[in-house]
């Protein structure tokens, strides 16, 4: 965690002098201990995040089990092209983040700054695309927060499945649940992206100043874990929301 910097160390602790180690917090013996502590701490944070998103995945799971067909049809409103593109963007950004960590591990300042910036830009692209997608949904009255929410199945589906008007009403409702889940999950994910981008900006300054070196780079490393985790969530969100049931709507 980023906490592992100088924590207003009260002086006078004689156990070990560490005037030579500016980034070592007073309560750690050495960089090794500090690094392992923050690495493990960050992993626990990731575990926490898994459960945090896990609640939403449970919601998805339950409703998809109950409303399989409706979810499949509703997902056809999502744009695979944008979604797929975004998946690619995020994967590449994960790669550049890994490269940034690598640069930090080697204590190379310039590549580190460069890769961080690229990652930041890719993150921005992702959020931008998400914005485009969201606006379309808003335009099509597919945001469940609106009174005007209305889901109409794509052409052909009604005939293919012989949907009665009553069944369509039900479908409208279940599609609403689908979009609730969609907005909750992708919204939370996008929020994580935004926080991540903020953190990159925050890390760029010390990176630029050359604060990170071979001994001390755990903030970058830990942030890398966070970024990869956000990528990981999307790796599941994409197929679950965009792809499952994709074969249905052409019928």
């Amino acid at each position, binding site marked *: 965690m980023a906490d592992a910097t100088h924590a207003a160390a009260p002086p006078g602790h004689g156990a070990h002098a560490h005037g030579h180690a500016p980034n070592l917090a007073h309560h750690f013996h050495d960089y*090794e201990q500090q*690094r*392992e502590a923050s*690495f*493990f701490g960050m*992993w*626990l944070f*990731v*575990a926490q995040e*898994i*459960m945090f998103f*896990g*609640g939403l*995945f*449970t919601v998805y*799971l*339950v409703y998809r*089990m*109950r409303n399989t067909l409706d979810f499949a049809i509703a997902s056809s409103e999502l744009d*695979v092209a944008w979604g*797929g593109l975004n*998946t*690619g963007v995020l*994967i*590449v950004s*994960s*790669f550049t*983040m*890994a*490269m940034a960590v*690598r640069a930090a*591990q*080697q204590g190379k300042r310039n590549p580190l700054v460069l890769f961080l910036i690229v990652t930041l830009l890719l993150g921005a692209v992702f959020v931008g695309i998400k914005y485009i997608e969201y606006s379309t949904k808003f335009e099509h009255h597919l945001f469940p927060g609106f009174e005007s929410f209305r889901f109409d199945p794509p052409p052909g589906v009604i005939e293919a499945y012989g949907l009665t008007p*009553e069944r369509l*009403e*039900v479908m409208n*409702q279940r599609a609403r649940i689908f979009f609730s889940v969609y907005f909750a999950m992708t919204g939370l994910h996008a929020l994580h992206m935004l926080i991540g981008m903020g953190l990159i900006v925050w890390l760029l300054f010390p990176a630029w100043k050359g604060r990170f070196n*071979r001994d001390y780079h755990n903030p970058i490393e830990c942030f*890398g*874990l966070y970024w*990869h*985790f956000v*990528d*990981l969530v999307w*790796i*599941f969100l*994409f*197929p*679950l929301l965009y*792809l*499952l*049931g*994709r*074969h*249905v709507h*052409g019928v």
Partner: protein
Amino acid sequence: MAEVHISPVRTYATILGALLVLTGVTVWVAFYDLGPLNDVVALGIAVIKATLVVLFFMHVKYAGRLVKLTVVGGFFWLLILFGLTVIDYVTRGDIVLDPPPVINPIAFETEGGA
């Protein structure tokens, strides 16, 4: 883990390639109707991708036992949440109203009078 493991660029590039290819595959497969297999394939590929990210990008492959345990534990706990919730849902005998009642389904009021 005394020394920090630094992965070669080639590893990262390979993983990147694999992830992108798998993304393509999963999109491509999604357009064919494989019955229930669609779900299996999509999730299977997602799990593979996730594993790659965790092992290589997140360096778990080179991490100590404690971190490995944390990762496995985190996902295992998620499975507990899924599993036991699903146990309830799949065995519930009660009827989910379809469509849900907007008005009183017993029609107390509609006819009026006792």
